[in-house]
């Protein structure tokens, strides 16, 4: 009994250490969000207490020269479209590779190539994508960026879906075939419901990574097709940086991440940890 009490008491230093770590994580984000509510002067003189103003947010969102809402829309379109594309390709591809009796060298070649492709810095391919997209006439379009993001996220999605489809019991598949089910019925009616949590986890990660991706979007976009990260980078590189507007747009850009963190944390954790623990 005395040991239990000792453990209970020793939680205080642990809690303090974790609280400190949480503070280190939260402070930069909170400070920048706060900076978005400051006036440029208040930020520059570094006063601690300030009267919050909405000027920077209004400028970023509604000023005539600002295209941030367009950037936001672009990121949404690319994020959703590339996620759907990656998810479809990864779900079918993973099932095909793991369950449809390909010769083992095909499976190893594909997964090995995907792994290598995942390790390569995206910027090395951006130039070749640009050339390729220009040839087929989709350079500087959202469609081009969507294809690039779908391809960039495919290795991770293939890997995750591979883990999830391998959990589907083979007996179920055999029973379905004996009952006369065709492959599409099997995939849609039986496999998909079983791997639904895995699909959700993969989808959340694909969307977040597409939303965050910068290098390919930078090379493959022009002003009307720029995504949020590209727009924020432009902010920071202006000759005279408008710090409060940069802070405001940074604050706006993490809204989707915060929403996903609150409502789908389970799937985010599942997605991020599946590859490593299994």
């Amino acid at each position, binding site marked *: 009994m005395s040991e239990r009490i000792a453990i209970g008491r020793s939680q205080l230093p642990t809690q303090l250490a974790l609280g400190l770590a949480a503070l280190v994580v939260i402070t930069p984000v909170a400070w920048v969000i706060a900076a978005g509510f400051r006036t440029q002067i208040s930020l520059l003189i570094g006063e601690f207490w300030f009267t919050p103003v909405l000027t920077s947010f209004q400028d970023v969102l509604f000023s005539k020269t600002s295209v941030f809402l367009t950037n936001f829309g672009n990121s949404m379109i690319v994020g959703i479209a590339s996620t759907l594309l990656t998810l479809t390709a990864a779900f079918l591809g993973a099932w095909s590779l793991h369950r449809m009796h390909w010769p083992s060298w095909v499976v190893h070649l594909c997964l090995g190539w995907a792994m290598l492709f995942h390790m390569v810095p995206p910027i090395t391919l951006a130039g070749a994508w640009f050339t390729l997209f220009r040839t087929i006439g989709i350079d500087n379009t959202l469609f081009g960026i969507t294809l690039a993001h779908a391809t960039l996220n495919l290795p991770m999605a293939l890997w995750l879906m591979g883990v999830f489809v391998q959990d589907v019991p083979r007996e179920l598949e055999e029973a379905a075939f004996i009952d006369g089910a065709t492959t599409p019925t099997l995939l849609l009616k039986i496999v998909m419901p079983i791997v639904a949590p895995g699909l959700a986890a993969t989808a959340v990660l694909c969307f*977040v990574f597409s939303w965050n991706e910068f290098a390919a979007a930078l090379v493959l976009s022009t002003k009307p097709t720029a995504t949020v990260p590209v727009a924020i980078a432009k902010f920071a590189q202006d000759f005279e940086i408008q710090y409060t507007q940069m802070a405001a747009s940074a604050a706006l850009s993490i809204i989707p991440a915060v929403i996903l963190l609150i409502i789908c944390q389970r799937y985010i954790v599942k997605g991020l940890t599946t590859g490593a623990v299994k």
Partner: protein
Amino acid sequence: MTSAAPALADAGMQEDRLWRWLTFAPAGILLLAFSVLPILNLIVVSFLHVSWSGGSASFSAAGIAHYRALGGDELFRAGVRNTLVFAVFAVAGQMVLGFALALLTSRVTRGRIIYRTIFILPILIPGIVIGAIWKLMFQPDFGLINQIFGLIGLGPFEWLKSASTALMSVIIVDIWHWTPFCFLLFLAGLESLPQDVYEAAEIDGASVWQELAYVTLPLMLPTILVTLVFRIVVAFKVFDEVYLLTSGGPGTSTEVVSFTIYQRFFTEDRVGYGSAMSVAVIFLVSLLLVLALSARKRLGPA
């Protein structure tokens, strides 16, 4: 399945083969068109001189000239050197801190979910936004970091603009960004460890440190190795934060490989040379992959 009538199995096989191709096609086409083809394109272009005139490119053979030039390119050498330093220190910091946080979190009974929620946040923030956040934090005049140092009478420091602190500052930002990822994987690993081993250790009177050294670490070794490989891979790809925080400077003090390629390929428009650099990096990365895989084979299945 084996008991099915042969005719039926044959028809099934035919259909199977069709669906095998159809289900493979979307992923196969994406990978072929946008990963295999671009890399082949890079390899071809890396042997060419490309010059632009009036919107159209003209090509002439360059042989291995571009590859020869790589070795003497100060920027590329600085890029490789800094990327290695960056990867080693950033990943080491993230692994140690992430493990410590995961250990602490796994011990608390209250607030575990809240801590996890807070710690996950940086993973989900765009790298470029993290760059923007820390550019403000490191800002010499009003940045929070210098304000804090000012309170104890130090500074102001030019974190990102001084060659001696710029790389360190970028490493600190990366540690802030990715420690949560290590934390999450380690926490998942710790939570899945068998509890009876710990009970046995407790009965044998093992101290906290003995428990850590002889029970936790050995059991966690596979997770630690996988996390290490994951992290090193991503650390080698670093681009966003450097682009925003320092653009490789001052001088070449934060030049990293991805950024060098960006400069040579896009800023300077040296397509042939940039392609050769890309191919060289891809080659180095695949060498790394082969090494990692053969190491894993030698260590046995993790």
